[in-house]
């Protein structure tokens, strides 16, 4: 009978020491120039002193815009994150990012945004989070390693028919005819808008059959035959910033086959995409159509690009 007796519930005892925990908030491939976000939580019992500093050590020093938040956030009743200052803004020194606390604080959750530098491209990065208390205690937490992708990303390029319509994969930029004439070797694609309902918003290789470039006068030397493979419902979250949890990473570019590629893609709709391989095979890219507007003859595109050789 004794075995069946329920134990009385007791509130668990805190460990009585400085403790910490980390979660990674950002999802998907980690890109150079983009943030990797963590939330670093630390706390100790009130009678054990206060937190004096928090720091993060990255195995590869982050870009100068890397920072550890000096505010601890809570979510108010309207669902808005409100920051409370707990110290001075973080200082980056070599691989370390440090926040010194100025408020008497026993618990805080600080966000850490690591901006991947160029040196980290294609490498793995590890992080060590450390908190110090006034009683001399320290708590540490290791995260990683996280791979930094080799690919690059450029968001929201505005292609305009008969104006900024020459797309360069190498530069991940859109140029006008005058600009394109100065760098014909870099132009891989042309954006065209024509009113027939089976044409509309189109992306065509400049070297394609002239019947697919109606009314387009290409600048001298713009003649590359770029490989294109249409894709649909491939809405990479970093490019589309939509609700779909789909990510394109380095490996996708490496494995993508271009045997059945065309050199044009007519009548593109918003949320469509194009796998692209440049004529010299140097770059592979995924061009996502964020939006198209008929009356202004424009398309907003975002590009992820991987260097093959």
């Amino acid at each position, binding site marked *: 009978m004794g075995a069946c007796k329920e134990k009385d519930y007791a509130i668990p005892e805190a460990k009585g020491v400085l403790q910490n925990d980390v979660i990674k908030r950002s999802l998907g491939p980690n890109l150079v120039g983009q943030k990797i976000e963590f939330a670093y939580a630390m706390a100790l019992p009130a009678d054990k002193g206060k937190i004096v500093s928090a720091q993060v050590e990255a195995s590869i020093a982050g870009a100068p815009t890397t920072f550890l938040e000096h505010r601890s956030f809570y979510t108010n009743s309207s669902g808005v994150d409100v920051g409370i200052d707990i110290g001075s803004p973080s200082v980056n020194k070599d691989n370390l990012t440090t926040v010194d606390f100025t408020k008497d604080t026993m618990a805080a959750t600080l966000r850490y945004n690591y901006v991947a530098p160029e040196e980290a491209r294609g490498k793995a990065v590890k992080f060590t989070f450390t908190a110090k208390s006034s009683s001399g205690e320290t708590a540490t937490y290791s995260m990683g390693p996280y791979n930094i992708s080799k690919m690059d990303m450029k968001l929201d390029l505005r292609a305009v028919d008969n104006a900024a319509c020459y797309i360069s994969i190498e530069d991940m930029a859109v140029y006008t005819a005058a600009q394109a004439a100065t760098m014909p070797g870099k132009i891989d694609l042309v954006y065209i808008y024509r009113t*027939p309902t*089976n*044409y509309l918003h*189109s992306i065509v290789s400049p070297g394609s059959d002239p019947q*697919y470039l109606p009314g387009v006068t290409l600048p001298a030397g713009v003649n590359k035959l770029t490989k294109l*493979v*249409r*894709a*649909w419902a491939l809405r990479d979250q970093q490019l589309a910033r939509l609700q779909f949890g789909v990510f394109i990473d380095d490996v996708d570019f490496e494995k993508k086959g271009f045997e*059945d590629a*065309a050199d*044009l*893609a*007519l*009548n593109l709709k918003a949320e*469509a995409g194009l796998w692209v391989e440049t004529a010299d095979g140097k770059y592979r890219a995924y061009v996502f159509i964020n939006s198209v507007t008929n009356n202004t003859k424009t398309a907003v595109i975002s590009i992820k690009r991987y260097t093959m050789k």
Partner: protein
Amino acid sequence: MKKYIITALVLLAAFAWISCKKENPVDEDGLLITSRAECYVSNFELLGADFQTVRTKNAVIDTTACTIKVEVFFGTDLKNLWPQFSLVTDAKLDPKVTGKVDFSDLANPKEYAVVSGNRQVRKTYKIFITVKP
């Protein structure tokens, strides 16, 4: 007593006959050969590299002349199309569609044969593709 033995033997013989009966016949693809003699294409679809249709309108299927006429969008990459046939019950297609098909030779339309459920009737359909100007 003798009558019972004969009855028993007759029953046994009946079971033996059932168990010896040939299994349901299957063809070289392991598909059941049935008694159906119908042989036609009921629907036809053409998909592009992005698995979206490239038809501008419904394909016109003539089951008497055995032709399928389909108009595709301007600029369609005819080298890489994925045809999809809907066939009458139990029929099968020859050759099989295993992936992308090159339809770019418009002068020589592709041919696909439909074989009926009893594998006795075979009708060859020609696919005529036109590109919307």
